[in-house]
């Protein structure tokens, strides 16, 4: 069994996540071509690149919503294919692009990850909302009434409920204004520093890229075309048309 801690208490640093010659298909088309990447435990990476580059496809591989067509993903030196999938998904969380809340209240959404493990005890989720900058009095609200930005923040709070050691985030701040986006990025940074949470965030926003990751990987047409400290990569990428187009 995996040692999957549900609390956010400090834990021993986890192993790095390693992509070894990963190719992946969607709908019969190869989207990723022989990608090699390594994400050290506790690192914060942003994934940028033009639309259709394969960023979202890559995130789906993290917790096995899809499997690569070739290559393997290792957690430390263990292929994730050999780990029990449900435990893996609680250890490697995923925040979807423009997430839609599950039916029910805000509290129901936060409780889902606990309910499915058979946990019946009432929990107080106020802290979880405060962490992502949501009003703790919203627990009893119907989650479907939340705005796009509120949904994104709730989705992050929901994904953190399993106490993951790795979190993939698909444009987690796209619907947030700069100050709210900054707060969410800060919350994620605190998680990394305090708990060793590894984050891999896809973004299209040039300004937010440094907030979400110290290191940046550029994907283009399914290949890694640049990789390094975020500010260096951004300086180089400023030459490419897509970043200018989406920047700002």
């Amino acid at each position, binding site marked *: 069994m995996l040692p999957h801690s549900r609390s956010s208490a400090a834990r021993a640093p986890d192993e790095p996540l390693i992509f070894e010659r990963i190719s992946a298909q969607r709908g019969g088309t190869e989207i990723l071509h022989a990608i090699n990447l390594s994400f050290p435990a506790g690192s914060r990476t942003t994934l940028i690149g033009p639309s259709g580059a394969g960023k979202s496809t890559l995130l789906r591989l993290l917790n096995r*919503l899809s*499997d690569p067509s070739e290559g393997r993903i290792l957690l430390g030196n263990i292929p994730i294919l050999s780990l029990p999938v*449900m435990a893996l998904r609680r250890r490697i*969380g995923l925040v979807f692009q423009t997430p*839609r809340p599950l039916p029910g209240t805000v509290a129901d959404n936060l409780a889902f990850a606990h309910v499915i493990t058979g946990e019946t005890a009432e929990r107080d989720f106020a802290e979880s909302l405060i962490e992502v900058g949501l009003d703790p009095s919203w627990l009893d609200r119907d989650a479907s009434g939340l705005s796009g930005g509120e949904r994104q923040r709730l989705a992050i709070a929901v*994904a953190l409920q399993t106490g993951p050691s790795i979190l993939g985030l698909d444009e987690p701040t796209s619907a947030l204004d700069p100050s709210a986006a900054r707060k969410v990025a800060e919350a994620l940074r605190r998680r990394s520093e305090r708990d060793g949470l590894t984050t891999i965030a896809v973004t299209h926003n040039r300004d937010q890229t440094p907030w979400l990751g110290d290191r940046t990987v550029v994907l283009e047409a399914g290949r890694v075309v640049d990789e390094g400290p975020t500010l260096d990569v951004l300086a180089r990428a400023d030459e490419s048309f897509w970043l200018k187009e989406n920047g700002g």
Partner: protein
Amino acid sequence: MKTAAPNWLGLAWAALPLAISMILLAWRRLGQVKSLAIAVVRLVVQLWMLGIVLKAIFAANNVWIVLLAASVMLAVASHTVGSRQPSARWTIRLEALIAMGLGIAVTMAISVKLALRLEPWYSPSTFIPLLGMILGNSVTGISLAAERLASDLKADRDLVEQRLALGATSRQAAMPALRAAVRASLTPVINNMMIAGIVAIPGMTTGQLLAGADVLEALRYQILVYLGITATAAMSTLILLGLRLRHYFTAAHQLRSES
């Protein structure tokens, strides 16, 4: 008390109001005249042929012939379930055959052996109409369940995957769709039982009363039929949903892409 059944001339009289309606529809160019004509002809021909077949089956009074007739009815019902689905029709037909076969077998066994104490158990004049009533009334619910599961899993792909990403099993992730499918299947039969005798006199009771049966006997028969319809719909739906679910998820609890 007993009413004589209408003879053919009587039926011709009974067709008069419909004929007048069709003339009015044709005159006002409101359509449906051709469909009505075809439907009436089919009704008469099909029931007439059913009569011939039933007469032969009743006369033969043979267990194998009854089982053959039951198999044909079951196959037609399964075929109907498949025909209503947008895709994977033949797979669904086969699965519906298994699901309805098991559901109806349990219901019929208990109905004829314990509830009716039929002697012999296959006595065709009871067995065949009972089977027909139960199959005919549960088949719609069963196909609605399969349809609903497919459409909900498609419309809520994102939610299903979000649940999976939080460590839910396929079944947990599909639970709202499964519940909606069960609701779709059972709502019609539940409603029928709710309104039975209040809003309408059920068809079978009507038939028995017209044929001169005792009122209380007819009602007890009707209750037996409703219990059988509901149980068959429920059991077959459970089995079919269990079989269907495997097609939407991999063993690793991944939602398959559109198939």
